Protein backbone atom coordinates (compact mmCIF):
# COMPACT_ATOMS: atom_id res chain seq x y z
CA UNK A 1 0.00 0.00 0.00
CA UNK A 2 1.29 3.42 -0.92
CA UNK A 3 0.49 6.68 0.82
CA UNK A 4 0.77 9.35 -1.85
CA UNK A 5 1.04 12.92 -0.69
CA UNK A 6 -1.97 12.79 1.63
CA UNK A 7 -3.35 15.98 3.10
CA UNK A 8 -6.45 15.89 5.23
CA UNK A 9 -8.49 18.39 7.16
CA UNK A 10 -11.54 17.89 9.39
CA UNK A 11 -12.73 21.49 9.10
CA UNK A 12 -11.08 22.64 5.85
CA UNK A 13 -9.10 25.22 7.85
CA UNK A 14 -6.28 23.43 9.61
CA UNK A 15 -4.64 20.42 8.00
CA UNK A 16 -4.43 17.42 10.34
CA UNK A 17 -2.28 15.61 7.81
CA UNK A 18 0.29 17.49 5.74
CA UNK A 19 1.51 15.88 2.55
CA UNK A 20 2.14 12.50 4.12
CA UNK A 21 4.22 10.28 1.88
CA UNK A 22 5.03 6.71 2.77
CA UNK A 23 4.70 3.05 2.08
CA UNK A 24 3.33 0.09 3.97
CA UNK A 25 5.66 -2.85 3.36
CA UNK A 26 3.86 -6.02 2.35
CA UNK A 27 3.76 -8.87 4.88
CA UNK A 28 5.28 -6.78 7.65
CA UNK A 29 4.10 -5.20 10.90
CA UNK A 30 4.10 -1.43 10.69
CA UNK A 31 3.46 0.71 13.75
CA UNK A 32 2.64 4.40 13.70
CA UNK A 33 3.88 6.30 16.76
CA UNK A 34 3.79 9.94 17.74
CA UNK A 35 2.42 12.30 20.39
CA UNK A 36 -1.31 12.79 21.05
CA UNK A 37 -3.09 14.61 18.25
CA UNK A 38 -0.27 14.14 15.74
CA UNK A 39 -2.61 12.52 13.21
CA UNK A 40 -1.84 8.80 13.73
CA UNK A 41 -5.43 7.64 13.91
CA UNK A 42 -6.43 10.15 11.25
CA UNK A 43 -3.88 8.66 8.87
CA UNK A 44 -5.22 5.19 9.64
CA UNK A 45 -8.74 6.49 8.98
CA UNK A 46 -7.72 7.94 5.62
CA UNK A 47 -5.95 4.70 4.71
CA UNK A 48 -9.09 2.71 5.45
CA UNK A 49 -11.38 5.04 3.48
CA UNK A 50 -13.22 6.29 6.58
CA UNK A 51 -12.09 9.83 5.78
CA UNK A 52 -11.63 11.29 2.34
CA UNK A 53 -8.30 13.13 1.95
CA UNK A 54 -8.23 16.76 0.79
CA UNK A 55 -5.37 15.93 -1.54
CA UNK A 56 -3.36 12.87 -2.52
CA UNK A 57 -4.40 9.27 -2.68
CA UNK A 58 -3.95 5.86 -1.11
CA UNK A 59 -2.97 3.19 -3.62
CA UNK A 60 -3.80 -0.42 -2.83
CA UNK A 61 -2.70 -3.10 -5.31
CA UNK A 62 -2.23 -0.52 -8.03
CA UNK A 63 -5.62 1.10 -7.58
CA UNK A 64 -6.70 4.17 -5.62
CA UNK A 65 -8.98 3.08 -2.77
CA UNK A 66 -12.01 5.22 -3.69
CA UNK A 67 -12.11 3.23 -6.95
CA UNK A 68 -12.98 0.09 -4.99
CA UNK A 69 -16.58 -0.76 -4.22
CA UNK A 70 -17.06 -0.85 -0.43
CA UNK A 71 -17.38 -4.65 -0.42
CA UNK A 72 -14.32 -5.13 -2.64
CA UNK A 73 -12.25 -2.96 -0.34
CA UNK A 74 -13.58 -4.88 2.66
CA UNK A 75 -12.21 -8.08 1.12
CA UNK A 76 -8.72 -6.60 1.10
CA UNK A 77 -8.62 -4.50 4.21
CA UNK A 78 -10.07 -4.96 7.70
CA UNK A 79 -10.02 -2.44 10.53
CA UNK A 80 -10.24 -2.79 14.30
CA UNK A 81 -11.24 0.53 15.82
CA UNK A 82 -10.34 1.87 19.21
CA UNK A 83 -13.95 2.36 20.32
CA UNK A 84 -16.57 -0.13 19.26
CA UNK A 85 -20.30 -0.39 19.78
CA UNK A 86 -22.42 -3.49 19.60
CA UNK A 87 -25.72 -4.55 21.14
CA UNK A 88 -24.81 -6.12 24.47
CA UNK A 89 -26.83 -9.26 23.82
CA UNK A 90 -24.97 -10.17 20.64
CA UNK A 91 -22.98 -13.41 20.88
CA UNK A 92 -19.28 -13.69 20.09
CA UNK A 93 -20.08 -16.00 17.22
CA UNK A 94 -22.65 -13.68 15.64
CA UNK A 95 -20.47 -10.61 15.92
CA UNK A 96 -17.59 -12.50 14.32
CA UNK A 97 -19.89 -13.60 11.52
CA UNK A 98 -20.54 -9.93 10.68
CA UNK A 99 -17.06 -10.07 9.20
CA UNK A 100 -18.39 -12.28 6.43
CA UNK A 101 -20.52 -9.49 5.00
CA UNK A 102 -18.15 -8.52 2.17
CA UNK A 103 -18.17 -12.12 0.95
CA UNK A 104 -21.95 -12.45 0.99
CA UNK A 105 -24.09 -11.91 -2.02
CA UNK A 106 -27.78 -12.47 -2.49
CA UNK A 107 -27.35 -15.05 -5.21
CA UNK A 108 -24.44 -17.18 -4.09
CA UNK A 109 -24.60 -17.95 -0.40
CA UNK A 110 -21.43 -19.70 0.59
CA UNK A 111 -22.27 -21.01 3.98
CA UNK A 112 -19.48 -23.53 4.27
CA UNK A 113 -16.78 -20.97 3.54
CA UNK A 114 -18.43 -18.55 5.97
CA UNK A 115 -18.45 -21.13 8.74
CA UNK A 116 -14.83 -22.04 8.11
CA UNK A 117 -13.74 -18.42 8.20
CA UNK A 118 -15.58 -17.79 11.47
CA UNK A 119 -14.12 -20.98 12.93
CA UNK A 120 -10.63 -19.91 11.90
CA UNK A 121 -11.09 -16.38 13.26
CA UNK A 122 -12.31 -17.72 16.61
CA UNK A 123 -9.43 -20.21 16.77
CA UNK A 124 -6.82 -17.52 16.05
CA UNK A 125 -8.19 -15.27 18.74
CA UNK A 126 -8.61 -18.12 21.21
CA UNK A 127 -12.34 -17.56 21.60
CA UNK A 128 -13.70 -20.98 20.58
CA UNK A 129 -14.97 -21.82 24.07
CA UNK A 130 -16.53 -18.36 24.43
CA UNK A 131 -18.44 -18.38 21.16
CA UNK A 132 -21.89 -18.65 22.73
CA UNK A 133 -21.28 -15.91 25.29
CA UNK A 134 -22.69 -12.45 24.78
CA UNK A 135 -20.51 -9.35 24.48
CA UNK A 136 -21.42 -8.05 27.94
CA UNK A 137 -20.23 -11.30 29.54
CA UNK A 138 -16.67 -10.79 28.30
CA UNK A 139 -13.67 -9.08 29.87
CA UNK A 140 -12.08 -6.07 28.19
CA UNK A 141 -9.32 -8.13 26.64
CA UNK A 142 -11.73 -10.74 25.32
CA UNK A 143 -13.98 -8.06 23.89
CA UNK A 144 -11.06 -6.54 21.98
CA UNK A 145 -10.24 -10.02 20.65
CA UNK A 146 -13.82 -10.43 19.35
CA UNK A 147 -13.40 -7.29 17.25
CA UNK A 148 -10.16 -8.71 15.90
CA UNK A 149 -11.97 -11.98 15.18
CA UNK A 150 -14.59 -10.06 13.21
CA UNK A 151 -11.87 -8.37 11.18
CA UNK A 152 -10.12 -11.72 10.62
CA UNK A 153 -13.36 -13.29 9.37
CA UNK A 154 -13.17 -10.81 6.51
CA UNK A 155 -10.16 -12.85 5.34
CA UNK A 156 -8.19 -9.82 4.22
CA UNK A 157 -4.46 -9.60 3.69
CA UNK A 158 -4.32 -6.20 5.39
CA UNK A 159 -5.29 -5.64 9.01
CA UNK A 160 -5.39 -2.18 10.62
CA UNK A 161 -5.62 -1.72 14.37
CA UNK A 162 -6.16 1.66 16.00
CA UNK A 163 -4.61 1.67 19.49
CA UNK A 164 -5.57 -1.96 20.16
CA UNK A 165 -3.94 -2.06 23.59
CA UNK A 166 -5.48 1.07 25.09
CA UNK A 167 -7.64 0.36 28.17
CA UNK A 168 -6.10 -3.11 28.62
CA UNK A 169 -3.89 -4.17 31.51
CA UNK A 170 -0.36 -5.36 30.78
CA UNK A 171 -1.29 -9.04 30.53
CA UNK A 172 -3.95 -8.41 27.90
CA UNK A 173 -1.68 -5.93 26.10
CA UNK A 174 1.04 -8.51 25.67
CA UNK A 175 -1.46 -11.25 24.86
CA UNK A 176 -2.88 -9.05 22.12
CA UNK A 177 0.47 -8.06 20.66
CA UNK A 178 1.59 -11.70 20.63
CA UNK A 179 -1.63 -12.54 18.81
CA UNK A 180 -0.93 -9.84 16.24
CA UNK A 181 2.64 -11.06 15.73
CA UNK A 182 1.36 -14.59 15.39
CA UNK A 183 -1.11 -13.54 12.71
CA UNK A 184 1.69 -11.85 10.83
CA UNK A 185 4.14 -14.75 11.09
CA UNK A 186 1.73 -17.61 10.46
CA UNK A 187 -0.63 -16.14 7.93
CA UNK A 188 1.49 -13.41 6.39
CA UNK A 189 -0.99 -10.66 7.23
CA UNK A 190 0.25 -7.15 6.59
CA UNK A 191 -0.42 -5.24 9.78
CA UNK A 192 -0.62 -1.52 10.45
CA UNK A 193 -1.31 -0.36 13.98
CA UNK A 194 -1.19 2.71 16.13
CA UNK A 195 0.54 2.29 19.49
CA UNK A 196 1.42 4.66 22.32
CA UNK A 197 4.04 2.51 24.00
CA UNK A 198 7.33 3.01 22.19
CA UNK A 199 8.90 -0.13 23.67
CA UNK A 200 6.00 -2.23 22.42
CA UNK A 201 6.32 -0.59 19.03
CA UNK A 202 10.03 -1.40 18.91
CA UNK A 203 9.51 -4.96 20.05
CA UNK A 204 6.57 -5.91 17.88
CA UNK A 205 7.11 -4.12 14.61
CA UNK A 206 9.31 -4.45 11.55
CA UNK A 207 8.68 -0.91 10.44
CA UNK A 208 7.98 2.18 12.52
CA UNK A 209 6.41 5.36 11.19
CA UNK A 210 7.09 8.43 13.29
CA UNK A 211 4.61 11.28 13.10
CA UNK A 212 4.43 14.74 14.54
CA UNK A 213 2.03 17.62 13.81
CA UNK A 214 0.45 15.84 10.88
CA UNK A 215 3.73 15.10 9.21
CA UNK A 216 5.47 11.79 8.73
CA UNK A 217 9.00 12.47 10.00
CA UNK A 218 10.58 9.16 9.13
CA UNK A 219 9.94 5.50 8.73
CA UNK A 220 12.12 2.42 9.04
CA UNK A 221 13.27 -0.39 11.32
CA UNK A 222 13.53 0.48 15.02
CA UNK A 223 17.31 -0.04 15.13
CA UNK A 224 17.80 2.46 12.37
CA UNK A 225 15.52 5.26 13.41
CA UNK A 226 15.00 5.25 17.19
CA UNK A 227 17.57 7.62 18.66
CA UNK A 228 17.78 9.79 21.76
CA UNK A 229 17.50 12.87 19.54
CA UNK A 230 14.40 11.59 17.75
CA UNK A 231 12.50 10.85 20.96
CA UNK A 232 13.47 14.25 22.35
CA UNK A 233 12.33 15.88 19.15
CA UNK A 234 8.92 14.23 18.86
CA UNK A 235 7.92 13.76 22.49
CA UNK A 236 10.19 16.25 24.27
CA UNK A 237 11.31 13.51 26.64
CA UNK A 238 14.90 12.65 27.56
CA UNK A 239 15.50 8.93 27.30
CA UNK A 240 18.25 6.38 27.61
CA UNK A 241 18.38 3.83 24.83
CA UNK A 242 19.65 0.44 25.91
CA UNK A 243 20.13 -2.83 24.21
CA UNK A 244 19.66 -6.18 25.88
CA UNK A 245 20.39 -9.65 24.57
CA UNK A 246 16.88 -10.90 25.20
CA UNK A 247 14.72 -7.86 24.58
CA UNK A 248 16.75 -6.01 21.95
CA UNK A 249 16.45 -2.25 21.87
CA UNK A 250 14.51 -0.49 24.63
CA UNK A 251 14.13 2.98 25.98
CA UNK A 252 13.86 4.33 29.51
CA UNK A 253 12.56 7.86 30.08
CA UNK A 254 14.77 9.87 32.44
CA UNK A 255 13.28 13.37 32.39
CA UNK A 256 11.85 16.16 30.34
Amino acid at each position, binding site marked *: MEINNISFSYDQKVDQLKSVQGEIPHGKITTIIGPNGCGKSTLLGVMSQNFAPRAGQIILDGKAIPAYKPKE*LAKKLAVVHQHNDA*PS*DLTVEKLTAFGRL*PHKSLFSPNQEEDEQAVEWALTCTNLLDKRKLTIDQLSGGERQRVWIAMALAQKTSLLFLDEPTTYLDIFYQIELLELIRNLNERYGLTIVMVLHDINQAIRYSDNIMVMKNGELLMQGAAQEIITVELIKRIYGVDVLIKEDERTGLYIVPVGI
Partner: protein
Amino acid sequence: MNKKVLSMAVVIVLLIVVTLVSATTGSIKVGSLDLIQGLFTGTNKSVQIIKDLRLPRIIVSLFVGAALAVAGVLLQAVMRSSLADSGVIGISSGAGFISILFVTLFPKLFFWLPVFAFLGGALACFLVYALSWKAGLSPIRIILVGIAVNATFTGLGQSFNYRGSYAVTQVNQATTSIFTMKTWTDVEVIVTYGTIGLILSLFLSSWCNLLSLQDKSAQNLGLHVARARLIISIVAVLLSAIATAIGGLIAFVGLLVPHIARLLVGSDHKILIPFSALAGALLILSADTLGRTVLAPTEIPASIIMTVIGGPFLIFLIRKSDRMYGN
Protein backbone atom coordinates in the same frame (compact mmCIF):
# COMPACT_ATOMS: atom_id res chain seq x y z
CA MET B 1 -33.31 -19.21 22.59
CA ASN B 2 -36.23 -20.71 24.48
CA LYS B 3 -37.39 -17.31 25.61
CA LYS B 4 -37.49 -16.16 22.00
CA VAL B 5 -39.51 -19.14 20.77
CA LEU B 6 -41.85 -18.90 23.74
CA SER B 7 -42.41 -15.17 23.27
CA MET B 8 -43.10 -15.67 19.59
CA ALA B 9 -45.58 -18.48 20.29
CA VAL B 10 -47.36 -16.48 22.99
CA VAL B 11 -47.77 -13.46 20.73
CA ILE B 12 -49.13 -15.58 17.87
CA VAL B 13 -51.62 -17.35 20.13
CA LEU B 14 -52.74 -14.07 21.72
CA LEU B 15 -53.09 -12.51 18.28
CA ILE B 16 -55.42 -15.29 17.14
CA VAL B 17 -57.42 -15.17 20.36
CA VAL B 18 -57.83 -11.39 20.32
CA THR B 19 -58.78 -11.45 16.64
CA LEU B 20 -61.53 -13.99 17.34
CA VAL B 21 -62.72 -12.14 20.42
CA SER B 22 -62.74 -8.88 18.52
CA ALA B 23 -64.70 -10.38 15.63
CA THR B 24 -67.30 -11.96 17.86
CA THR B 25 -67.95 -9.24 20.46
CA GLY B 26 -69.78 -5.95 20.04
CA SER B 27 -73.34 -5.02 19.33
CA ILE B 28 -73.80 -8.17 17.25
CA LYS B 29 -72.59 -11.33 18.93
CA VAL B 30 -71.85 -14.65 17.27
CA GLY B 31 -69.84 -17.67 18.34
CA SER B 32 -66.36 -18.23 16.91
CA LEU B 33 -67.44 -21.39 15.12
CA ASP B 34 -70.54 -19.76 13.62
CA LEU B 35 -68.35 -16.93 12.46
CA ILE B 36 -65.84 -19.09 10.64
CA GLN B 37 -68.61 -21.23 9.19
CA GLY B 38 -70.57 -18.14 8.15
CA LEU B 39 -67.58 -16.59 6.44
CA PHE B 40 -67.20 -19.58 4.19
CA THR B 41 -70.84 -20.32 3.49
CA GLY B 42 -72.13 -16.72 3.44
CA THR B 43 -75.55 -17.77 4.73
CA ASN B 44 -75.48 -16.29 8.24
CA LYS B 45 -76.87 -12.74 8.23
CA SER B 46 -75.09 -11.52 11.35
CA VAL B 47 -71.85 -12.84 9.96
CA GLN B 48 -72.41 -10.86 6.77
CA ILE B 49 -72.82 -7.67 8.80
CA ILE B 50 -69.67 -8.49 10.74
CA LYS B 51 -67.90 -9.11 7.49
CA ASP B 52 -68.89 -5.72 6.14
CA LEU B 53 -68.35 -3.65 9.28
CA ARG B 54 -66.16 -5.36 11.77
CA LEU B 55 -63.72 -7.34 9.66
CA PRO B 56 -62.28 -4.38 7.74
CA ARG B 57 -61.77 -2.63 11.03
CA ILE B 58 -59.93 -5.61 12.46
CA ILE B 59 -57.67 -5.99 9.43
CA VAL B 60 -56.90 -2.27 9.38
CA SER B 61 -56.05 -2.35 13.10
CA LEU B 62 -53.72 -5.31 12.60
CA PHE B 63 -51.84 -3.70 9.74
CA VAL B 64 -51.67 -0.25 11.32
CA GLY B 65 -50.17 -1.78 14.45
CA ALA B 66 -47.68 -3.93 12.56
CA ALA B 67 -46.65 -1.07 10.27
CA LEU B 68 -46.12 1.45 13.08
CA ALA B 69 -44.18 -1.01 15.22
CA VAL B 70 -41.87 -2.02 12.39
CA ALA B 71 -41.42 1.61 11.33
CA GLY B 72 -40.31 2.27 14.90
CA VAL B 73 -37.76 -0.57 14.82
CA LEU B 74 -36.35 0.66 11.50
CA LEU B 75 -36.11 4.29 12.61
CA GLN B 76 -34.42 3.27 15.84
CA ALA B 77 -31.85 1.27 13.88
CA VAL B 78 -31.20 4.08 11.41
CA MET B 79 -31.05 6.86 13.97
CA ARG B 80 -29.31 4.77 16.63
CA SER B 81 -31.72 6.01 19.24
CA SER B 82 -34.28 4.01 21.14
CA LEU B 83 -36.51 7.09 21.31
CA ALA B 84 -37.03 7.34 17.57
CA ASP B 85 -40.63 6.71 16.57
CA SER B 86 -42.62 8.02 13.64
CA GLY B 87 -45.04 9.68 16.05
CA VAL B 88 -42.33 11.33 18.13
CA ILE B 89 -40.09 12.69 15.39
CA GLY B 90 -42.85 14.07 13.20
CA ILE B 91 -43.11 11.57 10.35
CA SER B 92 -46.73 10.72 11.19
CA SER B 93 -47.75 14.32 11.69
CA GLY B 94 -45.92 15.31 8.48
CA ALA B 95 -47.82 12.59 6.64
CA GLY B 96 -51.07 13.74 8.25
CA PHE B 97 -50.54 17.42 7.49
CA ILE B 98 -49.58 17.01 3.82
CA SER B 99 -52.55 14.65 3.31
CA ILE B 100 -54.95 17.20 4.79
CA LEU B 101 -53.38 20.01 2.81
CA PHE B 102 -53.70 18.28 -0.54
CA VAL B 103 -57.07 16.71 0.07
CA THR B 104 -58.43 20.10 1.15
CA LEU B 105 -56.99 21.83 -1.90
CA PHE B 106 -57.85 19.04 -4.34
CA PRO B 107 -60.73 17.01 -2.87
CA LYS B 108 -60.95 14.96 -6.05
CA LEU B 109 -57.55 13.43 -5.37
CA PHE B 110 -58.82 11.66 -2.27
CA PHE B 111 -57.80 8.36 -3.79
CA TRP B 112 -54.15 9.46 -3.74
CA LEU B 113 -54.17 10.01 0.01
CA PRO B 114 -51.49 7.33 0.66
CA VAL B 115 -49.16 9.01 -1.82
CA PHE B 116 -49.56 12.41 -0.17
CA ALA B 117 -49.06 10.80 3.20
CA PHE B 118 -45.85 9.22 1.97
CA LEU B 119 -44.59 12.54 0.58
CA GLY B 120 -45.43 14.28 3.85
CA GLY B 121 -43.68 11.60 5.90
CA ALA B 122 -40.65 11.74 3.62
CA LEU B 123 -40.54 15.54 3.91
CA ALA B 124 -40.61 15.33 7.71
CA CYS B 125 -37.96 12.62 7.75
CA PHE B 126 -35.74 14.62 5.40
CA LEU B 127 -36.14 17.72 7.57
CA VAL B 128 -35.18 15.79 10.67
CA TYR B 129 -32.02 14.43 9.03
CA ALA B 130 -31.03 17.66 7.32
CA LEU B 131 -31.53 19.83 10.39
CA SER B 132 -29.85 17.49 12.84
CA TRP B 133 -26.89 16.49 10.66
CA LYS B 134 -23.70 18.02 11.95
CA ALA B 135 -20.68 15.98 10.95
CA GLY B 136 -22.55 12.78 11.73
CA LEU B 137 -25.73 11.75 13.49
CA SER B 138 -26.21 12.41 17.15
CA PRO B 139 -29.14 10.46 18.63
CA ILE B 140 -30.08 13.22 21.05
CA ARG B 141 -30.02 15.95 18.41
CA ILE B 142 -32.21 13.84 16.11
CA ILE B 143 -34.82 13.42 18.82
CA LEU B 144 -34.82 17.11 19.74
CA VAL B 145 -35.07 18.25 16.12
CA GLY B 146 -37.71 15.57 15.54
CA ILE B 147 -39.82 16.84 18.42
CA ALA B 148 -39.64 20.34 16.96
CA VAL B 149 -40.58 19.11 13.48
CA ASN B 150 -43.42 17.11 15.01
CA ALA B 151 -44.71 20.14 16.89
CA THR B 152 -44.65 22.22 13.72
CA PHE B 153 -46.56 19.71 11.61
CA THR B 154 -49.01 18.92 14.40
CA GLY B 155 -49.72 22.62 14.76
CA LEU B 156 -50.16 23.09 11.03
CA GLY B 157 -52.45 20.07 10.91
CA GLN B 158 -54.57 21.29 13.80
CA SER B 159 -54.94 24.72 12.26
CA PHE B 160 -56.88 23.02 9.46
CA ASN B 161 -59.29 21.53 11.94
CA TYR B 162 -60.35 25.03 12.94
CA ARG B 163 -61.33 25.95 9.45
CA GLY B 164 -64.87 24.65 9.90
CA SER B 165 -66.92 21.53 9.61
CA TYR B 166 -66.14 20.92 5.93
CA ALA B 167 -62.48 20.27 6.51
CA VAL B 168 -63.11 18.24 9.61
CA THR B 169 -65.46 15.77 7.99
CA GLN B 170 -63.52 15.56 4.76
CA VAL B 171 -60.12 14.92 6.21
CA ASN B 172 -61.13 13.28 9.43
CA GLN B 173 -59.42 10.11 8.30
CA ALA B 174 -55.91 11.50 8.38
CA THR B 175 -56.07 13.29 11.70
CA THR B 176 -58.00 11.13 14.11
CA SER B 177 -57.82 7.46 14.59
CA ILE B 178 -61.29 6.10 15.02
CA PHE B 179 -61.35 2.85 13.18
CA THR B 180 -65.11 2.90 12.58
CA MET B 181 -66.26 3.28 9.02
CA LYS B 182 -63.34 1.33 7.66
CA THR B 183 -64.28 -0.29 4.39
CA TRP B 184 -62.81 -3.04 2.27
CA THR B 185 -61.26 -0.29 0.11
CA ASP B 186 -59.21 0.87 3.10
CA VAL B 187 -58.29 -2.74 3.70
CA GLU B 188 -57.07 -3.10 0.12
CA VAL B 189 -54.88 -0.02 0.37
CA ILE B 190 -53.28 -0.83 3.70
CA VAL B 191 -52.85 -4.53 2.94
CA THR B 192 -51.14 -3.77 -0.38
CA TYR B 193 -48.71 -1.08 0.82
CA GLY B 194 -48.41 -2.54 4.30
CA THR B 195 -47.41 -5.95 2.99
CA ILE B 196 -44.87 -4.44 0.63
CA GLY B 197 -43.34 -2.42 3.47
CA LEU B 198 -43.31 -5.32 5.91
CA ILE B 199 -41.71 -7.71 3.43
CA LEU B 200 -39.07 -5.15 2.49
CA SER B 201 -38.31 -4.58 6.14
CA LEU B 202 -37.57 -8.29 6.59
CA PHE B 203 -34.93 -8.01 3.88
CA LEU B 204 -33.40 -5.02 5.66
CA SER B 205 -32.76 -6.88 8.91
CA SER B 206 -29.08 -7.59 8.27
CA TRP B 207 -28.43 -3.93 7.42
CA CYS B 208 -30.20 -2.90 10.60
CA ASN B 209 -27.95 -5.26 12.54
CA LEU B 210 -24.83 -3.76 10.99
CA LEU B 211 -25.98 -0.23 11.76
CA SER B 212 -25.96 -1.15 15.44
CA LEU B 213 -22.17 -1.11 15.15
CA GLN B 214 -20.43 2.19 14.64
CA ASP B 215 -20.78 3.75 11.21
CA LYS B 216 -17.10 3.37 10.46
CA SER B 217 -17.12 -0.27 11.53
CA ALA B 218 -20.08 -0.97 9.26
CA GLN B 219 -18.33 0.86 6.46
CA ASN B 220 -15.13 -1.14 6.91
CA LEU B 221 -17.25 -4.27 6.60
CA GLY B 222 -18.26 -3.13 3.14
CA LEU B 223 -21.66 -1.66 3.96
CA HIS B 224 -22.65 1.41 1.97
CA VAL B 225 -23.78 3.17 5.14
CA ALA B 226 -25.45 6.23 3.62
CA ARG B 227 -27.32 4.14 1.06
CA ALA B 228 -28.46 1.63 3.69
CA ARG B 229 -29.71 4.49 5.90
CA LEU B 230 -31.62 6.04 3.01
CA ILE B 231 -33.33 2.80 1.97
CA ILE B 232 -34.25 1.81 5.52
CA SER B 233 -35.64 5.31 6.10
CA ILE B 234 -37.75 5.12 2.95
CA VAL B 235 -39.30 1.84 4.05
CA ALA B 236 -39.91 3.25 7.53
CA VAL B 237 -41.60 6.33 6.03
CA LEU B 238 -43.71 4.13 3.74
CA LEU B 239 -44.92 2.09 6.70
CA SER B 240 -45.70 5.03 8.96
CA ALA B 241 -47.30 7.03 6.15
CA ILE B 242 -49.65 4.25 5.13
CA ALA B 243 -50.55 3.63 8.76
CA THR B 244 -51.27 7.33 9.22
CA ALA B 245 -53.22 7.64 5.98
CA ILE B 246 -55.58 4.81 6.90
CA GLY B 247 -55.38 4.67 10.68
CA GLY B 248 -54.71 8.26 11.68
CA LEU B 249 -52.19 9.55 14.20
CA ILE B 250 -51.33 6.97 16.81
CA ALA B 251 -48.43 7.70 19.10
CA PHE B 252 -46.27 5.34 21.12
CA VAL B 253 -46.70 2.10 19.19
CA GLY B 254 -43.33 2.48 17.49
CA LEU B 255 -41.77 3.31 20.82
CA LEU B 256 -43.46 0.80 23.05
CA VAL B 257 -43.48 -2.33 20.92
CA PRO B 258 -39.78 -2.39 19.90
CA HIS B 259 -38.83 -1.80 23.54
CA ILE B 260 -40.82 -4.75 24.79
CA ALA B 261 -39.68 -6.81 21.82
CA ARG B 262 -36.01 -6.13 22.59
CA LEU B 263 -36.50 -7.26 26.17
CA LEU B 264 -38.21 -10.45 25.03
CA VAL B 265 -36.38 -11.54 21.87
CA GLY B 266 -33.15 -9.52 21.94
CA SER B 267 -31.73 -7.05 19.47
CA ASP B 268 -31.17 -9.26 16.42
CA HIS B 269 -33.36 -7.63 13.77
CA LYS B 270 -33.96 -10.94 12.01
CA ILE B 271 -36.35 -11.84 14.82
CA LEU B 272 -36.96 -8.35 16.24
CA ILE B 273 -38.72 -7.13 13.08
CA PRO B 274 -41.22 -10.00 12.64
CA PHE B 275 -41.85 -10.12 16.37
CA SER B 276 -42.50 -6.38 16.53
CA ALA B 277 -44.90 -6.64 13.59
CA LEU B 278 -46.96 -9.29 15.40
CA ALA B 279 -46.80 -7.52 18.76
CA GLY B 280 -47.76 -4.19 17.19
CA ALA B 281 -50.74 -5.79 15.46
CA LEU B 282 -51.77 -7.37 18.76
CA LEU B 283 -51.44 -4.09 20.65
CA ILE B 284 -53.52 -1.95 18.30
CA LEU B 285 -56.19 -4.57 17.79
CA SER B 286 -56.47 -4.97 21.57
CA ALA B 287 -56.63 -1.20 22.05
CA ASP B 288 -59.31 -0.84 19.39
CA THR B 289 -61.36 -3.76 20.67
CA LEU B 290 -61.12 -2.43 24.20
CA GLY B 291 -62.04 1.04 23.00
CA ARG B 292 -65.23 -0.05 21.33
CA THR B 293 -66.45 -2.50 23.97
CA VAL B 294 -65.64 -0.97 27.36
CA LEU B 295 -68.06 1.95 27.18
CA ALA B 296 -70.26 0.63 24.36
CA PRO B 297 -72.05 2.14 22.55
CA THR B 298 -69.61 5.05 23.09
CA GLU B 299 -66.24 4.49 21.48
CA ILE B 300 -62.82 5.47 22.73
CA PRO B 301 -60.35 5.83 19.83
CA ALA B 302 -57.44 3.42 19.81
CA SER B 303 -55.03 6.37 19.78
CA ILE B 304 -56.40 7.59 23.10
CA ILE B 305 -56.18 4.14 24.65
CA MET B 306 -52.61 3.92 23.38
CA THR B 307 -51.54 7.19 24.96
CA VAL B 308 -53.20 6.32 28.23
CA ILE B 309 -51.48 2.93 28.39
CA GLY B 310 -48.35 4.10 26.61
CA GLY B 311 -47.28 6.91 28.91
CA PRO B 312 -47.06 4.98 32.18
CA PHE B 313 -45.77 1.88 30.45
CA LEU B 314 -42.95 3.80 28.83
CA ILE B 315 -41.89 5.19 32.20
CA PHE B 316 -41.93 1.66 33.58
CA LEU B 317 -39.77 0.41 30.71
CA ILE B 318 -37.24 3.22 30.91
CA ARG B 319 -36.78 2.58 34.60
CA LYS B 320 -36.39 -1.13 34.07
CA SER B 321 -34.51 -1.55 30.87
CA ASP B 322 -30.80 -1.24 30.33
CA ARG B 323 -30.84 -2.58 26.82
CA MET B 324 -31.04 0.67 24.94
CA TYR B 325 -29.11 2.40 22.25
CA GLY B 326 -27.06 5.37 23.23
CA ASN B 327 -25.86 4.53 26.73
